């Protein structure tokens, strides 16, 4: 077996990529640290899982396979989503007064170009490793968090309007989900799905709750790096303890993009120009998003994500079912 032989992703690797897609935006975008938002994230995850559950647990091997043309169509929202992620990452770097954001953007595209020349499984493995490292931090979180947490912070009044919509708009991993299924065995896909559902419905909300409880402490110098790996510091503060978690934020976003682009690239046999054929539109979308932030408004994702993440896979599954029934009746 050589490196060029295509390998399926394991259940854990698929789950890691899905969670990284969510975490990438979680760290790059303004995340309201409040109990209400944690609850909304959990509820949204449960609803999304319920909507997708039959695709994984009933006739999963055949029904969830998208036809090639539909998988190709999936490129458009995926590229748009990646561009959106690039723009959010750029905005984060800019707001953190990071060194030379345009240069970093070039470096990011260099990394993407290099990553797309590697075997597809490398992104999935890297995602698995990153999530494993994050898992260690999560293990330390309760130990380090409870001693300094402020329970009263949970009752901080936050504007709860649009939080539900915000979570839907940030659920970019749903776009990857139908494509992810194309390179996984039914068993592995099922594992990925369950891991993603648990991660999103339980672990991410818990992180938000811990973040909310730590908000008071973040105003002081003595921050805990393990917690700050996951928590968001207010950007307007005079001090910034973001050094440790910014690695994770950039890493999550970059790996999520690599994972999505790899999947989009391998929908059909990629030519040597396929990589540039992906990166040039991505650069264009990113440029538009950075220069004109309203070009891809949050409202766009409100219908694009449900349509391509849930609607089209369901349509494909139903079409497949009808087609199978017709074939059966014709043969009998």
């Amino acid at each position, binding site marked *: 077996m050589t490196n060029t032989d295509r390998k399926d992703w394991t259940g854990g*690797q698929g789950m890691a990529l899905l969670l990284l897609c969510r975490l990438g935006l979680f760290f790059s975008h303004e995340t309201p640290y409040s109990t209400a938002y944690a609850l909304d994230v959990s509820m949204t995850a449960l609803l999304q899982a319920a909507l997708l559950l039959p695709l994984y647990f009933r006739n999963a091997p055949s029904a969830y396979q998208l036809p090639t043309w539909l998988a190709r169509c999936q490129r458009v929202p995926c590229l748009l989503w990646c561009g959106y992620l690039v723009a959010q990452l750029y905005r984060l770097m800019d707001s953190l007064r990071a060194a030379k954001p345009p240069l970093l953007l070039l470096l990011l595209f260099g990394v993407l170009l290099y990553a797309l020349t590697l075997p597809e499984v490398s992104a999935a493995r*890297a995602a698995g490793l990153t999530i494993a490292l994050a898992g260690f931090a999560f293990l330390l979180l309760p130990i380090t968090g409870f001693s300094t947490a402020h329970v009263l912070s949970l009752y901080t009044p936050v504007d709860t309007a649009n939080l539900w919509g915000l979570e839907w708009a940030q659920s970019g991993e749903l776009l990857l989900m139908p494509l992810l299924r194309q390179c996984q065995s039914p068993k592995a896909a099922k594992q990925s799905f369950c891991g993603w559902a648990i991660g999103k419905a339980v672990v991410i909300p818990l992180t938000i709750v811990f973040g909310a409880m730590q908000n008071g402490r973040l105003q002081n110098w003595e921050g805990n790096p393990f917690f700050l790996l996951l928590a968001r510091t207010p950007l307007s503060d005079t001090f910034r303890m973001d050094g440790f978690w910014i690695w994770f934020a950039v890493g999550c976003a970059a790996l999520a993009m690599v994972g999505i682009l790899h999947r989009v690239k391998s929908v059909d046999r990629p030519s040597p120009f396929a990589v540039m054929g992906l990166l040039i539109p991505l650069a264009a979308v990113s440029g538009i998003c950075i220069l004109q932030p309203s070009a891809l408004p949050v409202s766009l994702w409100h219908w694009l994500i449900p349509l391509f993440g849930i609607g089209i896979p369901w349509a494909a599954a139903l079409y497949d079912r009808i087609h199978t029934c017709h074939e059966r009746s014709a043969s009998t």
Partner: protein
Amino acid sequence: MTGKPEQLALCPDLEQSLCYIRETAAYSADLIINRVTVGGIPCALLCSEGMFSTTFLSEMVWEPINQISQTYATGTALLDAIQNHKLLGVDRKSVERYDTLFHLLHSGFAILLADGAPFGLATGLQGYVSRSIGEPTGERNLFGGKDGFTETLRLNLSLIRRRMKSPQLTFQMLQCGTLSKTDLCICYLQDRVPKDLLDQIRQALKNIPAESVLSGGYIRPYLEESDTHLFHSIGTTERPDVFCAKLLEGRVGILIDSTPFALVIPQLFCEPFQTLDDYSYNPVYVTLVRWLKYLAFFVAVLLPAVYLAIAVWHPELMHRTLLHLLLESEQTAPFSIATELLGVLFMYEILREADLRLPKSVGGAVSIIGGLIIGDAAVSSGLISTPVLTVAALSVTAGFVIPNLHQALTLLRPAFVLAAACGGLCGIALLGVAVLLNTCATEVYGFPITAPIAPFYRKGLRDVVTRLGFRRLVKGNFRVEEVRAHDKH
């Protein structure tokens, strides 16, 4: 007689044959031809000077053939009689072609040719001078054996066989190098090695187009899948005990004649962090040491870059006292921190290389000049700030803990410094992603080096994240094949 030696069968006419041998060897000074008449047949005994033992030659060849008083009608009958009734050493072969003749001749065999016989008799009399077994210099330990591989292949095989007397342990000899015809030995345990891995390695070794194989580095690129990977997927060891431990896990080992290092396929990323002493200490202590090594790896790679990023781009991340200290030190230094760091790191590499290449008698002077004179003078004169020197020294010292990863560390350290200089912590993160992807893409014959974490394999973690006690470790012994199996679903 025309044509390439490997295409020709031995000529029965002794004179013609000797003439051809002399011409092919270009009258080389080390070719010794002794003419003698045995049993009434003109014969010639061929040896290569310096490759055989004269004692063995007289005891095992001259004495038995001098005792032959019977007369033989043909050379073939004479050689048949010697082969069947006279014991000429243990390692005996019949030579029918010139390429075999030359190979055996230069491997320390004595070859007896008889007039009229279309074959010769070869007897192994190897007696060339070789280095005796000594303690491995690169892989020292406290509790393991003190013997290491030497340059003599057969001796190395005996070191392995002494440790594993199982009939499952198989040695398979091959020759590699179109010109050097170097002997290689593939070692494996029949019942544990994945068959496809063995076949692919055999095939790859047979197809190596190199003219010579003078060290493991000559064949490693042909076995690895790419030269662009930062971390090797094929390991090396000079310890027979470590080599045996790898074979027990179902790996394939390759020994090369004239090289005191063995290759082991595959090698996972976590293996350079493991030593033989780990299995002699208390498991809890070993787990702690192992985590220290993982930490040392990150310190070795990232410390200079993180220091630079924080000092230049994110000074607010530092405590006020630390910031003041840094400011004071840097005020007198004429260069930027990035230049200072890169300068110190490159200076270290130059000193290390000089120390490695210089004769031992002078080598000590390098550390004195480098450590005391250059380091002290540079700081005293204000050319380099003390924090930069401290950070570089800490990073380099941390790298000593994992000497097998030296090459990768040397490449990554300045690369991360440059990334930090360009983009601060974000630059480090982006380069980190590229390195992570490169590492995750590294495979050898389908074995990903990032196992057992990616692909995740719980059983494999017993000796990676922790080191369990032997009682638990031996339950379901680890096989490297399991790693690949877990990557398939």
